């Protein structure tokens, strides 16, 4: 069995009369320590899938196995515990707490977590050792995104889920952030799932999962992923 198993997951949004099938029997696997890229057009169901995987949302039907546990069968409270210890999120918008310094934002995450890493060291690892006492408003977008990655990493999660982390960043900064994510995966062995609608990023993945209108249309294993520095778009 794979580390992550997404089996025939269906998610239906019901709004009054109409119902939208965001995921339609989506199935894919990701192995431990892999860098998986999820590709698809806007509205294809990528975020929905990632949210379900991260315990932020529940599937209408299907199984979601992470490290042998079916999180689709978890209670709301169990899902919080799962997020608390096993999942790190990185979003397009960095969602830092504006009132906390970079260091404190990382500390906020490890507050509730047991096997966490040292916040200051983690910040150094993402290259912000000298900006630790700055507030988010004093940091650039790329720097803020790096704080948010540090915040996710400091929890020492089983999964790092990234939903278009470069969507709001310029080319160079975006590349730096992707580099950081790839390095983290390679160096620390964290399983990373990254959503993007930029198909140019496909070669950097160990595994490529394509979504189209709620269905997984393609899963490609790439034995020779390219380092991000060699990819241009």
């Amino acid at each position, binding site marked *: 069995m794979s580390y992550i198993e997404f089996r025939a997951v269906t998610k239906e949004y019901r709004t009054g009369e109409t119902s939208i099938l965001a995921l339609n029997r989506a199935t894919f696997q990701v192995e431990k320590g892999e860098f998986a890229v999820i590709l698809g057009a806007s509205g294809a169901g990528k975020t929905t899938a990632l949210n379900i995987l991260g315990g932020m949302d529940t599937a209408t039907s299907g199984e979601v196995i992470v490290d042998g546990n079916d999180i689709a069968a978890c209670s709301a409270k169990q899902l919080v515990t799962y997020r608390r*210890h096993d999942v790190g999120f990185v979003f397009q918008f960095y969602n830092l707490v504006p009132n906390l310094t970079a260091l404190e934002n990382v500390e906020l995450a490890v507050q509730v977590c047991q096997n966490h890493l040292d916040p200051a060291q983690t910040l150094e690892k993402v290259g912000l050792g000298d900006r630790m006492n700055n*507030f988010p408003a004093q940091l650039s977008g790329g720097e803020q995104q790096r704080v948010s990655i540090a915040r996710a990493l400091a929890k020492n999660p089983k999964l790092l889920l990234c939903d278009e982390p470069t969507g709001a960043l310029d080319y160079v900064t975006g590349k730096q952030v992707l580099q950081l994510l790839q390095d983290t995966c390679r160096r620390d062995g964290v399983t990373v799932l990254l959503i993007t609608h930029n198909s140019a990023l496909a070669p950097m993945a160990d595994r490529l999962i394509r979504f189209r209108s709620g269905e997984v249309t393609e899963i490609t294993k790439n034995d020779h992923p390219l380092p991000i520095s060699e990819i241009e778009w």
Partner: protein
Amino acid sequence: MRAYTKDIFRNISHSKKRFLAIALITLLGVMMFSGLQASCNDLEKSADAFFDAQHLHDIQIQSTLGLTDDDITALLQDKDVAAAAGIRSVSADIKSSDSKTETLLSDAAVTTLNDAGIDAPYLLKGSLPSAADEALLTEKTAKNNGLSIGDSFTVSATEDTDSSSSSPALLVTKFKVCGIVTDPTDVDNPFGQVSYRSSQSSSDKVFVKPNAVSGSIYTSVVIELKDAKSYNCYSDDYADYVNDVQTRIENKIRPSAEERRTEEVRADAQKTLDDEISASEDALKKQTEEAEKSLSAAGSQAVPKEQLQAQKAQLEQKLKAAQDKIDEEKAAQQKKIDKMEGASWYVMNRTALSGWSNIQSDADSIASIGVVFPVVFFAIAILISLTTVARMIDEDRGLLGTYKSLGFTNQEIQRKYLLYVGMAGLAGSIGGTILAFIAFPSFLFTVFRMMYLLPSYSLSVMPLRAVLGPVLFMGGILLTTVYSCNKELRQSAAALMRPKSPKPGSHVLLERIRPVWRRMSFLRKVTARNLFRYKSRMLMTVLGIGGCMALLIFGFALRDSDVISRYTNAAITSAKLQTSDGEISVSLVVFPDETDASEYVNFDKLEASNAGSIVSADSGTDSTASAGTSISSADSGTDSTASAGTRADTGNLETGDIYVTQNAATLLNFSAGDKVSCRLPDLSEADLPVTAVVRNYIGNYMYMNESTYKSYFGDPGYNAVLASFKDSVSTSAKKAFGTDLKNMSGISAVMVTSELMEQSADTFRLMNVVVAIIIVMSAALAFVVLFTLQTTNISERERELATIKVLGFYDREVHQYINRETWFLTILGVLIGLPLGWLFAQTISVILRLPSISLSVSIHPVSYLYSAVLTLLFALLVQLITNITLNRIDPATALKSVE
């Protein structure tokens, strides 16, 4: 434009909470702005209407020498006097002639009705008297004497006036009750809770036709003024109008009328004297003539000259003596007449009537409480709408930008928010006005009904107030809205459409104090930062909570400043105790069964009897505890000692207990266990076994509870109120209160003669209601404030909260994350509210201008505690509700990209 209007309505339904908050705060404000005032206005108006209908006199005149028809004629000369009528009143004892046992009943004033219809009693039941032997009774009189329509009773004047005198005298002594009435000159409700400011105790009243009372002079003259009815009798205009007439009467009519009456009485007296003197002189003359005749007859007979001389001298001497005596008498009487005090008028207006003025002072003091409130409510309403509108516009930034880029002018965009806020304010204003003028007064009417005998209360609108309240509140919140809108709309459309960067964080001062900062837990640090991040909201929360807290303290202080801590009904009658050693008068005090009598009377037992055996105790003991001990040492029976001990400890009256004070026991030479014969004023008699002799230094008393009384005499009929001062009341305040009570006519007499006491000391029943209203309103206000600020806080920080949820914070931790701040601010608000409340309370003595009781403001420490606990409870309640909002935040939705 139609789509735009649609947007507004959708806006309301999408942010119901906000709409409700604005509506609610306006409702509370408008209601408080007018509610108390409207109730008082209604009370005064209803009273005015009643007094107009019953032609309550505007001016009443009494004179030391009585008043005559000449006085009435003189008074009618004044251009403003519409009618004047003479009233004759006789104080008399009433005896119900139907009852089998001859019972002595209360004394009453038998008063004549008048043709002018002034002071007409309001007929509750029955009909007006059609014959001289028919009478009307006030409800209280009927109840006190067990009389109802159709019953007859006899009256006997308490002061003997000989029938020849001109003073009023009863022509009829047996009456039949033809109707039950309310006397407009005395509308204090004797059955309910009389305001303790009442300055007159009303005696029983009997109204009879003029021809039932004889006499050429009147006890008083009552006057109705021409234009008085066109005024509200509680208005300044009325007071001015009556004062004018009163001054005219005092200056123009009174001197000559007094002189005329004085002359009249003096002339009468002179004539009587002259008649008497001339009668005596005539008699003397006759006597002299007879004597002279007999002398001359004797002279014609041959009587020795010396003897005749001597006889003559003797006679002359005798006559001279008699003449001297007459002259002396004449001089003395003449001196009396010359020195006779002239008539002296008392010209009184309605303020002399206790019921009438109680209504005025009650209305005034309640109305003045209603002044403080709207100010606080207004300030808080402005705060709330400022917060709410600012947040709403903040959330709509993008939309504002869109409208702006679509070419809408600032005015047009603003209109949406003005309409939204205006509709909320209007809804609140309408609700508030309805509550203020209908619900609020209707509620207070139930209290007024307990206090006054007015037959009906009617609602009325105070147009100026009804308009002013909504205008003030809506004006306030609309201006706030314009201000908030303009602040945002000044920016360009592009700037508005860009998402507003969240309020940046910054280091707080506390971080400079490293040792403290380092020792704080991480989440505490977060709390500290957030507190200083939202300074304006922090300020509003603290002020809002502080204000509510202060109002609560104000409310409690109103209650605390009342000097009486507890009271009970009781029956006090005089009774005669008799043993073979003699007879003395005691005051028999009967307590209701369920009352702890020892709270009012200190039963310090000297002797107690148990199970029929007489137990003597050491009479030197002076505390209850040692009385118990000494009883046990005197008695060997263990179980009886035990009960004696416990009884002495609780000191309370059980059924069967009859306690008599020491002095009576000594005088009549009896002790606990003996039987004494007891006779009540109604002449019912019983032999009572005295169970204990208790210490009491002043007066002779006998105590028992209602059941005990019933088993010997029947229903006691409560006629008194016993009250205890609060411990906190100072000696001087107690003294002042006592003096005030004594000054109320009738009360000191009651204490001396042990007659029926009817002054109710139940104070401030009305105030209690007002206090309750204040507490409920403050609670509502605290609730709205906390709720608004908390929901605004949450909505403003939704992303932040979603983020910590994503990070795996449990619900409870999320609640703490927010509520820690709220608690801190609430506690800060409570701390600020303490001195603020004290300050508010200091205004009480100014606000409540009570005529007879000087209120010293006192606030119990526990009231601060109550206020604080209540405020914290409201805070907790609000948090329980907003916690639900927190739980509903869905991180997946909240963190979706900021479109």
